[in-house]
């Protein structure tokens, strides 16, 4: 006799449930499996390879070059271009992050009320964020060209004289900041707009009834409630600024001289111009470390602020 036929019906049901339950336990893993595999292949493995690469005097790939431990990191100490690149990165980040967030917030506040053509304005401000960095770089190179650019022609027509937007060291960095801020304000605006929708209207109404001015309502109600959004936007914008490559590469090539050479550009140059993959990987890890430290500090500051509130 077949064993199944001897089993009481209730036992069979229990066994079926157990099998289904066991199967059920695996189903979530099957579903997250593809994403996990992609993460493994395109994030985790490259990170591990980058770490291993940074410990080698490698010119092309992971298997190449001799093992030098922390040699690449030690070499950075005697590389004068690193200091320049770090300083430029800092200037660029300070120039772009607060400015784009402040303008983004101002636009978000302005567009968070009924206005004719509000949707069109929102879309227009967001368009630069969607445009490819290289395209932005090429177009802006034309616009800011000292000899036949629109900006200088306009300034000259207004009797203000021409400026060396891309050809004098101080000006070039300022021009890049202007361009990057322009591309970034749409993104900040959209994120802030979303956050502004969640600020309870009754709080602002109550404050208004109590006689609080518009600025006081913004400072004491809206701004504190936007803190989590500001925090995440700051981190994202710093990441964007540390990764800003295409616009700088196209518009100034890091020049004039070294005046706009930022760290990510130096990573690229070390890897693909100088063929020093190990050194470039080490530089990349330094960039990650800077970002990590900044993020941790920012999170700690936010926690403290929340405790005070």
């Amino acid at each position, binding site marked *: 006799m077949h064993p199944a036929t001897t089993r009481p019906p209730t036992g069979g049901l229990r066994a079926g449930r157990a099998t289904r339950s066991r199967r059920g336990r695996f*189903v979530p893993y*099957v579903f997250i499996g*593809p994403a996990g*595999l992609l993460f493994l292949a395109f994030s985790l493995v490259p990170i591990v390879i980058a770490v291993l690469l940074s410990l080698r005097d490698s*010119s*092309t*790939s992971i298997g190449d070059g001799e093992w030098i431990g922390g040699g690449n990191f030690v070499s950075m100490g005697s590389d004068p271009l690193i200091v320049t690149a770090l300083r430029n990165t800092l200037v660029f980040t300070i120039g772009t992050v607060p400015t784009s967030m402040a303008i983004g917030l101002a636009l978000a506040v302005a567009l968070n009320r009924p206005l004719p053509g509000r949707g069109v304005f929102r879309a227009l401000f967001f368009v630069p964020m969607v445009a490819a960095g290289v395209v932005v770089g090429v177009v802006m*190179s034309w616009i800011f*060209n*000292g*000899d*036949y650019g629109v900006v200088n022609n306009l300034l000259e027509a207004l009797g203000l004289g021409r400026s*060396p937007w*891309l*050809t*004098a*060291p101080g000006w*070039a960095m300022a021009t890049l900041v202007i361009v990057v801020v322009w591309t970034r304000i749409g993104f900040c605006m959209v994120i802030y707009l979303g956050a502004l929708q969640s600020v309870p209207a009754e709080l602002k109404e109550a404050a208004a009834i109590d006689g609080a001015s518009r600025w006081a309502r913004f400072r004491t109600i809206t701004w504190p409630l936007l803190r989590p959004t500001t925090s995440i936007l700051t981190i994202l914008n710093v990441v964007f600024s540390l990764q800003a490559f295409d616009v700088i590469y196209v*518009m*100034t*090539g*890091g*020049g*004039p*001289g*070294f005046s706009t050479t930022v760290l990510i550009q130096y990573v*690229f*140059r070390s*890897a*693909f*111009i*100088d*063929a*020093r993959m190990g050194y470039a990987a080490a530089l990349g890890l330094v960039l990650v470390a800077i970002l990590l430290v900044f993020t941790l500090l920012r999170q700690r500051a936010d926690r403290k602020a929340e405790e005070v509130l």
Partner: protein
Amino acid sequence: MPTRPSPQLARRGFLALAGISMAGALAACAGQGTAAHGGTKHIRLSTWNIPTDITSYQAIADEFVATHPGTSVAVEVTTGQFHQWFITRLAADLAPDIIRITPQQIGRYAANGSLVDISGQVPADYRADYTDPFWAIGARNDGVYGVFQHTDNFITYYNRTVMERIGVTPPTAVTDAWTWDEFLDVAREVKQVTGKYAFGYGWSGPETAYRWLPFVYQNSGAFLGEDGATPSMDTPEAIGALEFGRKWYAEGLATTGNLSKTGGGDVARNLFMTGQIGMMLNNPEPMAQLDEEMPDDWGTAPMVRNTGEASDLGGNALAVTKSSRYPELAAELVVMITSRANVERFCHDGNWLPARKSLDAADIGYATHSDTMQQFIDQGATIPLSMVKAESGQYFASLNAVFADYLDLCLLGQLSPEDAADQMMGAMRSVTAN
């Protein structure tokens, strides 16, 4: 009546589908290397994205396939930044079999084993039809790692109206070329006429900083010593060349918007076409656009000279990469493309200058401006062997980046020519030491 599949079956089906898709995606990620497709030997040739050239290569490739049964050839396009593209493909062993590569790019890959020695496949009579400098682009002491297919260089373009207004008749023969002093004298007068600047230089980005090196050689200096590896930018001749360059910007004869790093692109061409400069030192590329924008109002003179002659080293070689599964077959195709007949045809269709010395403008039969093309061909003979060896050397990609940095600083007046030379030497030494 059709029955709905049970939910479990649908889920299984979904998971199976996901698995198959994943496997398919991974298989696709494996890329398309050089492989035998059903017994066919497949060769990939990668070229710059120039439609006429792609057509020319494909036509020659089709003839190659017709005479080599069991082979197939695909012409592909080299995308993005060259070194990034090529290094990553070499690392993955997915580089094309044949690569179209500039003299400034070939050195590193010939030295580090990324290119294959094809000396065994190149016919003996090829060498005789090349000048020493052009042959040296692909040849090394231990073999031949590429064959130079076509070249280009810099000559002087001028605006006819401007020249008439200042009463100057530009020279036509290389032997009568303007010296630096004569050129600067003419430039000062041109500046008076344009009201802006006098001339522009045909850089197109930081990676083309080397296009300025001919001035070092025109002043009897050298970028690297005789061994092709020792930096030599601190000689009086090299510093003299930097002083000459500094004058361009100090006197406002050239705009600071026209430097290798900043501006780049088509700045010189745009300034020339908009009348802001009356002369430009450039390669043959702008000719077609000048014909459209200012027909009959432009002419050409030889590249300037000083104690010596030199011009920019442009053009491309063809080389076989180590990723090739059929290097001998790939080398055969390189030999076929660089044959005299095919170089002639390629240069005619693409308006290129031939690398072979037995070909001139009359042989090629250019559709337009045959005289100007012959002027370029004659100018090519002034490219010195020592400059070719320096530019096609193993460290040149890095040295060129260093040159771009300090040339920029010197021309802008941020560093004096002496300081620029001194700091450039330090940076060059650290490159060659690494």
